C-alpha cells in the first residue's frame, strides 16, 4: 500500500525474506525511502527473481511513476550485491539525482574498473560492469552526479516543503578524507602492484572502506544506513571516523540498517552507544 503524503517509509530489500519492512530480492540489498509528498529515494540496487531491479518493481507495484517521483538515487559502494540493476534504475528514474562515492570521480579508479573488464572471461562479470554502465548513462543524459565523502549533504527539504512539515536531510557519513586519499593512492599504483599476477575479478580488500554510510534525519528522528562500512583499527577510517565526526551531533537513530550484513568486522560498540537510541529497530540483510 502506498504511504500517505505525510508519512515517511523505509523499505529494505534483502534475499529470501518477505516480512514487514523487508522486500525480497534474489541477491544483495537495496532501500527505498518515501521522503514525503510522493517523493522517493533509492539507495543501492538488487535484482528480484525476475532479474528486475527490486526497487522499480516495488514502486511500480504501488503505482509510483518512477520517471518523475524518484528524486534521488545512490550507490553506497561498488560491491555487486549493492549495484546489480543500478544502471537500469538510473536509466528509468530520469528525474533522480544520482550520487555515489567520490572514488568514481577519479580517473585512476575508473581505469581500474576498465582494466578488469578487458579480460577474456565471457560469463562472469568482472565487478565493474554495472558502475561503468551507470556512468555512461548519466553522461549520455547529461545528468549531474554528486560525489560523496564524509559530511556531504545529499539532499534536504526545509520544514513546510513536505506534507509532514518536518525538515528532512540525507547526509553521507563516510568515507573519511584519509580513507579516500589512501584508496586513490593505492589504486594509482595498480599496474605495478598487479604485475606478474594473473588477472582476476576485482577484489580490492578496501572496497568496503569506501562504503558510504548515510544518515536520514526526519525532524528529530534518524535512520542510520550502515552500507558495508567496516570497523578498522585506524581511528581516522571506518566506523571510528564516523563516530568521532558525529559525536555530539544528533539525532540518534531509531532505525539502524546494520552494516555489512551483520558481519562482525563491521561492528563498533560506540555506534550503538552514541549514534542509535537505546532500543532501535535494527535491520539486517543477510
Amino acid at each position, binding site marked *: 500500500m502506498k504511504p500517505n503524503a505525510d508519512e515517511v517509509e523505509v523499505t529494505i530489500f534483502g534475499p529470501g525474506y518477505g516480512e514487514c519492512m523487508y522486500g525480497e530480492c534474489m541477491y544483495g540489498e537495496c532501500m527505498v525511502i518515501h521522503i514525503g509528498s510522493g517523493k522517493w529515494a533509492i539507495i543501492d540496487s538488487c535484482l528480484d527473481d525476475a532479474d528486475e531491479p527490486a526497487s522499480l518493481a516495488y514502486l511500480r507495484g504501488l503505482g509510483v511513476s518512477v520517471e518523475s517521483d524518484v528524486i534521488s538515487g545512490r550507490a553506497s559502494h561498488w560491491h555487486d550485491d549493492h549495484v546489480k540493476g543500478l544502471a537500469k534504475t538510473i536509466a528509468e528514474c530520469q528525474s533522480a539525482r544520482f550520487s555515489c562515492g567520490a572514488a568514481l570521480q577519479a580517473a585512476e579508479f*575508473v581505469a581500474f574498473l576498465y*582494466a578488469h573488464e578487458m579480460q577474456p572471461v565471457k560469463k562472469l562479470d568482472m565487478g565493474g560492469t554495472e558502475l*561503468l554502465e551507470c556512468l555512461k548513462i548519466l553522461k549520455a543524459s547529461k545528468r549531474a552526479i554528486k560525489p560523496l565523502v564524509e559530511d556531504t549533504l545529499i539532499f534536504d527539504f526545509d520544514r513546510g516543503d513536505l506534507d509532514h512539515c518536518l525538515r528532512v536531510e540525507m547526509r553521507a557519513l563516510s568515507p573519511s578524507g584519509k580513507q579516500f586519499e589512501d584508496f586513490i593512492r593505492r589504486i594509482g599504483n595498480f599496474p605495478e602492484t598487479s604485475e606478474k599476477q594473473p588477472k582476476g575479478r576485482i577484489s580490492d580488500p578496501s572496497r568496503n572502506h569506501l562504503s558510504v554510510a548515510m544518515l536520514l534525519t526526519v525532524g528529530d528522528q534518524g535512520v542510520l544506513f550502515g552500507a558495508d562500512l567496516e570497523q578498522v583499527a585506524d581511528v581516522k577510517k571506518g566506523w571510528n571516523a564516523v563516530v568521532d565526526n558525529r559525536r555530539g551531533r544528533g539525532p540518534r537513530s531509531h532505525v539502524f540498517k546494520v552494516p555489512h550484513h551483520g558481519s562482525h568486522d563491521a561492528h563498533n560498540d560506540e555506534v550503538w552507544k552514541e549514534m542509535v537510541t537505546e532500543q532501535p529497530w535494527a535491520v539486517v540483510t543477510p
Partner: protein
Amino acid sequence: MNTPLSSVAFDDQNGSAGHSRIEQAQDDYDIRKASSSVLDIIHSESHAWQSHSGTGSFAQFPPSALPREAGQAVGRTGTEKIVPLVNGVFTNKPMAKPGRTLIPITEWEGYVDGISDDKFSVKVVNIRSKSSVPVDEVTFDKDEISEYDRPLLKEGAIVRWIIGRERLDTGQVRNVSELHFRRLPAHSKEDYKRAHEEASALLKGINWDNEAEC
C-alpha cells in the same frame, strides 16, 4: 567426438624447428577460439602433453617456444602446459588423460571470494544461467586443488568448476568434481594505458555536482 592426433610445429628459442605429437582424447567440451589478444591457458592434472623427451606429464618450454599463428598473441605465464593449436584454433579444452573421457554434467564459472586456513569460498554462476551474477557460494577444502594451482589461489582468481561423469576405457564410471583455475595473463602497462584512455574519455564531460544540493 574423436579428433585425430595433431602435430604442432614450433620454433624453439634458438630458431630450430621441432615437433611434438599431442595425443588428444575425446571429450565433450566446445572448442572456443582464442581471444584476439590473449591465450587462455587452463591447466589441470588431466592435461596430457608429451614432449619430445617424453618426460612425465609436464613439458617446460621457454616463452618463445610457443605455437604461433599469424595475428595470434600468446600469453606467457611461465612453465604451464600449453594447449596446442589444433585445426586452426587454439583450444582451451582440458585434455583428458589417455583412456579417460569426461562428460560435464554441470559447469559453473566463479571467483575466489574468501580464503581461510584450510578452506576457500568461491562465488559461482552456472554457465547456462542467463545471469552473469554469481549468487551461489561454494566452499572448498584447499586439499582439493593441486600443488601446481595453489599459487593461483588468491581473492578474485577466476575458476571453472565442473561436475561430470568420468568414463575409463576399462568401463569404470564415476562422478568427479574438477576445479580449474584460469591462468589469465597479468595486467600489463599497455593494458592499463588503454584502460586509462577509456576512463579519461568516459569521465570527460560528466557533470560532477560538487556544489548544488537536490
